[in-house]
């Protein structure tokens, strides 16, 4: 009887551990929402670093192709002060697929956000008047937090790298 209870207790503990680890794993992959108020704070939080913000979405084929290349860029220039942040523009219907994709490319190691603006037009316009909200879109900030360049559409990674190295 005692052995049976011990076995039962171990089983329960094992189940609890699996349950807790699955919660922890899910939470690690949660994308933090960013809106028109928190975006400037996010950028200013990287002062002293060169920051590349990547707006992407799970449905955006060129964005998906670009992400692994950005991960390599981050690895190459992290020691020199490059930080890359991803912001998913997925709507609620597709955003659940975002963490899995980020993980598959190694981009889950980068700070990951999801765009949840109260007014999308204002958010997009405030970020860059030339941006329509189309993807892919990358924004490069210098070490003072000033936006110095934007890349819209498919952009050769060498062009992005050249712009980054000028700022490092």
């Amino acid at each position, binding site marked *: 009887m005692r052995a049976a209870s011990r076995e039962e207790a171990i089983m329960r503990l094992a189940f609890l551990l699996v349950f807790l680890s699955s919660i922890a794993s899910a939470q690690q992959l949660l994308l933090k929402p960013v809106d028109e108020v928190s975006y400037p704070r996010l950028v200013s939080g990287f002062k002293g670093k060169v920051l590349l913000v990547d707006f992407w979405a799970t449905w955006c084929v060129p964005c998906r192709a670009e992400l692994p290349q950005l991960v390599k860029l981050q690895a190459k220039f992290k020691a020199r002060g490059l930080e890359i942040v991803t912001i998913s523009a997925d709507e609620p219907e597709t955003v659940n697929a975002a963490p899995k994709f980020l993980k598959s490319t190694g981009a889950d190691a980068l700070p990951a956000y999801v765009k949840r603006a109260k007014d*999308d037009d204002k958010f997009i316009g405030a970020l860059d008047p030339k941006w*329509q909200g*189309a993807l892919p879109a990358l924004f490069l900030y210098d070490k003072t937090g000033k936006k110095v360049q934007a890349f819209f*559409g498919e952009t050769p990674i060498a062009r992005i790298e050249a712009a980054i190295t000028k700022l490092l």
Partner: protein
Amino acid sequence: MFPLLLFLTAVVEPPSFQLSTLQGASVQYSDLKGAKATVVAFIGIKCPVSQAYQSRMKSLFATYTAKGVAFVFVDANANESAAEIEVYATQARIPFPIYKDYNNRAADRMGTQTTPEMFLLDAAGEVRYHGAIDDATNEARVKTHGLRDALDAVLAGKDPKVKELKAFGCVLHRAKKQS
């Protein structure tokens, strides 16, 4: 607001550009425009956002063609061939013609950056509405029917209340220009 005004005042003269049918015949915009209003719709067959708007485009086309509005659907993406568009249009049972804009001349003329991106022009050729069809890819969450409301306003001889919604979607895949 200022860039919008600048944009709207910049495109006051009637647009003039040439498109191509999927079979390769040239066609002028002036031959496609409507007597009351014209919607020039830049779409992308490989853009999921553009695809998501397919049924709304069909509905707008059916509703407003009957009211005298002409629709000019344009594919200016350099990575989407006429043959691919033809296959897509057949499979998706697209009821309207799609024109090819080679070297994105029409897109350059209109300043198009995105698919899907709409331009509503009145009979005089003035752009009265520009941008997205509405404000949400998921139809259930739409709050502002930008294009539909603007069409109703223009047909009623009024000024659209909302003149622009950001045209979210895919960046237009422009042809590489010889420099």
